[in-house]
Every structure is written in structure tokens, then in C-alpha cells.
């Protein structure tokens, strides 16, 4: 089996929003619609203030509440974990949008363009099927499917990898197969401390956040091991 998942390394993300721009470019989302967003989170009081940039979007949950509430079965979950929307079935009731705990769904009532009148590229890529229905991040499912059909590996081959991951300047975003113990995402999760957002709600997000290295006190396990071996030798 395959379970596609995404990882955001909070230690690496610099909040440049390149993933956001790449997503908009790849998916031609209208103004105000950001399937991939990066939050600028600041906590604490001066002088003890911490800041993090947190990529968010559809979490492609194991048990997606948006799918259960959908009255039309427009929202479905594929066997590989990707949650999809069939725009031809969606009635635009927005029930899925209020059911999503990650604020990942959008509904655009009418066509809008960056500067009022549509520019040439907007005219070319405008999709009337996406008006007045729910939309969200698809994990760039078309790229994944096309890549797989061409024998490529999503998360490894850029042509088969979500646009946001490809665009990340800091390699903060990683995409891969969670069910493959040797995959990039499995390796990262094994070697780092991580969390999933709102895990208490039981949705089982397919989006993980790395926040520290492995081990009881974080750090760099491999490096620590080397240092310990060196000290033993000495």
C-alpha cells in the first residue's frame, strides 16, 4: 500500500512563501485562495519570544471529517490517502468547509482576478468548474498520477512531486510514501521529533511537522554517536 504524506520541517522553514506562490502558479487559484499557506506564528512576551513559520493546507486526513459530512460524495479519499473533490458533484454547500479543522477549504462565489479584468494567463487558466464549489490542496494529484504512470517516484522525482515541495528553497517540505519504511518521509519521521496538528480531534492528518531532532533532549543523534565513539577511542 501507499500512503502519501507531507512533512514540514519547522526548523528549516524561513517563511519565504515560495511554496505559496508555487502552489498558486501550479493550480491557478484565484486571489484570496491559498491552498498552501505559511503562517507566521509568534508566541511569548518580550524578551522571551519565539517565532515559527508553519506551512498549512489540506492535511489529507486518514479520517477526513470533510468527507463524512459531504452530502454528495464529492469529497472522497483515495486508497493512497489523498482527499479529492469532484467539482462536478459538489453543490457548494460549504458543509465540508465548516467541518475542516484546518481551514483548508475555499469556496469562490464568482470569478475574481488579480487586477479586476482577467490578464491573459488568467483567461487561459480560469476554470469555471471551480466557481461556487469547494476547493482545496490536492497534493498536486495530477502530477503524482502522471509521474507514477511514467515510472517516477513522487517525492523523489520533481515531475511527480507537489509544486510546493519542489519550490521550497530550504528543503523544509518533503513528500513521500509513509507506508514505505525506507522512504524519505519515513526516514525523517524516524529521526526527528514531530507532531500532527489538532491530533486530539482524531482526524489522522497526513501532514507532519518536525520540530526537534530525535533523542530525549533533541540534538543530532548521529553526530552525538560519533562523538561518543571518538571519546571511547580516545
Amino acid at each position, binding site marked *: 500500500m501507499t500512503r502519501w504524506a507531507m512533512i514540514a520541517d519547522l526548523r528549516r522553514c524561513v517563511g519565504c512563501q515560495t511554496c505559496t506562490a508555487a502552489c498558486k502558479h501550479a493550480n491557478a487559484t484565484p486571489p484570496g485562495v491559498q491552498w498552501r499557506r505559511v503562517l507566521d506564528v509568534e*508566541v511569548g512576551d518580550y524578551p522571551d519570544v519565539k517565532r515559527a513559520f508553519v506551512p498549512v493546507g489540506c492535511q489529507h486526513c486518514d479520517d477526513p471529517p470533510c468527507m463524512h459530512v459531504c*452530502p454528495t460524495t464529492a469529497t472522497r479519499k483515495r486508497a493512497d490517502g489523498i482527499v479529492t473533490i469532484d467539482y462536478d458533484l*459538489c453543490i457548494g454547500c*460549504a458543509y465540508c468547509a*465548516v467541518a475542516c479543522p484546518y*481551514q483548508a477549504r475555499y469556496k469562490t462565489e464568482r470569478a475574481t482576478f488579480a487586477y479586476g479584468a482577467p490578464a491573459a494567463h488568467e483567461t487561459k487558466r480560469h476554470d469555471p468548474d471551480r466557481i461556487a464549489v469547494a476547493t482545496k490542496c490536492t497534493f498536486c494529484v495530477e502530477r503524482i498520477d502522471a509521474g507514477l504512470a511514467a515510472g517516477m517516484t513522487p517525492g523523489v522525482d520533481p515531475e511527480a512531486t507537489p509544486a510546493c515541495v519542489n519550490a521550497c528553497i530550504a528543503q523544509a517540505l518533503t513528500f513521500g510514501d509513509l507506508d514505505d519504511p525506507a522512504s524519505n518521509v519515513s526516514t525523517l519521521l524516524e529521526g526527528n521529533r514531530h507532531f500532527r496538528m489538532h491530533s486530539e480531534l482524531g482526524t489522522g492528518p497526513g501532514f507532519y511537522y518536525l520540530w526537534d531532532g530525535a533523542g530525549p533532549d533533541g540534538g*543530532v543523534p548521529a553526530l552525538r554517536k560519533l562523538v561518543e565513539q571518538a571519546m571511547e577511542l580516545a
Partner: protein
Amino acid sequence: MSYGPAPWVQRHWDLRAAANFVFGGIGSGVIVFASLAGARGTPAALALVAGLALVGAGLFSVWLEIGRPFRAIRVFTNPRTSWMSREAYVAIALAAMALVAAWMHRAEAPAATVAGALAALVALAFVYCQGRMLNAAKGIPAWRSPATAGLIVTTSLAEGAGAWWLVAAAHAQGTRGALALLGVLLVARLLAWLAYRRTIAGAPRAAAALAPAGWALAVAGTLAPLVLLAVAATMSVEAWVLGLSAAAGALALAGGAWFKIALILRGAYNQGFAVPHMPVRGART
């Protein structure tokens, strides 16, 4: 636990969606209360038809909100898991049962009371679906409370009872028992609100936003009508009893409707974003 950008009030469902809960609740409540009050004949038929019309008005209102109204028929596609689909199916059953019961009451058929009771059961199922619909919206802490369904059901019944007594002078079927029943439903609604309020304590924004409507529900929508009902119970002049009962009914109705609007429009803060661990930088392998 630290939070990112603060939760904000959802804007996907507006007054049109709220109207579905308000009108649907009142309409179903009227149908249930007419049966509980032992209504019969033309007044019972009118209550059934009026209740059904209100339910229809609520569904029409929400139909105006959906993005693709001409695909609305697809709402029936997923009764397996969606409470919205289930609500749609129950609405069809309610329409059929209410019309049959109304016709039987109008014709003074012997089994009219049974038909009215069956319609009341379906109406009860309709408001239960509405409560569970909110409860299934995991993205809104104030809706996903386990006490939401109970609150929506009791509120709807109290609103329906209030509507029944608001026009009691017109149908002349307001018995003392039915007056007491309104009081019982008001108390039940207050208890449901208090139980619900405890469950949303962990969502402070929603709790604060709902507090004014909650107070209005408790004071103007419950205590004031209870006082009016108590005074009415001591009266012997029928005009006074009907007048005070109508006032109590209006307050019960308005309090519940106002609360539901607040629940959909003001208390509906979303989940926001949580970052339980801030990054420890410089530690990547």
C-alpha cells in the same frame, strides 16, 4: 500549547443557513407540540401545514446559499455518513407525513391523532438531524460539542411551543396542560443550554460570543415567559390567559431564534491553528 493566528468566525454559512435552523426548528417544533397538546380538527391541520411551510422556508433559504443550486438534488447522495443528506431525506418524509396527517385532521378521520403523532416523530427526527449536522462540523468548536444536538432539539421544541401559544387565541385549543408543557419545555431548554455552556468552556472565544445570546435565552426567553405562564395559570379570565400565554410564547420563540442565529453567525469560531512544539533550530541531522 501555543497558538498561531487566532481563530476567526466562519463566513461560509451566513444568515441563510441560520434561517434553516431557525425556521426548521420552529416548524418542526410546532408539529411536535400540536401533537403533544392534543390538537385536533382544523387547528391541528393548520399547525401541520404551517409547520411544514416553515420547514420548507428554511430549506429554501439554505438552497439560496449553496453555490450550485441546480445540483441540489445531489444532496440525497450520501445518507450513509452525512447528516445533511439525512436531513434532506427526513424532510421528504416529514412533508409526506404532515400532509397526510393534516388531511386526516381536516377530514376528522379517526386515526388523525395517530397520523399527527407519527408526523411529530418525523419532525423530531428532522431537528435531531439539524443538531447532529452541527455536531459533525469538527472545524467549529461551538458546534461539535456533544451537547449541541440536545440543545438544538430542546430549543426547537420550545420555539414550536412558543409559536403554538403565540397564536393560541386563533385556534382556541390552548389547554392548561399545554400551558404547563410550554413551561416544561422552557425549563428543559434552559437545562440544555447550561449543559451545553459547560462543554464549550474550552473554546473561550465562542463562549464569550455566545454569552449575550445565552443570557437572553435564559432571562428573556425562559425566566420571563415562565413568570408570565405562572401569572396566566392564576387567571380565570380567558382573554388574560391567552394574552399572557401569547406573550410568553413570543418570548420563548424569539429567545430561541436569536440564540440559534448567534450560534451560527457569532459563536462559530473555527479551530484556528495549533503549534504544540516550537521548532528547536540547529538540530537537524
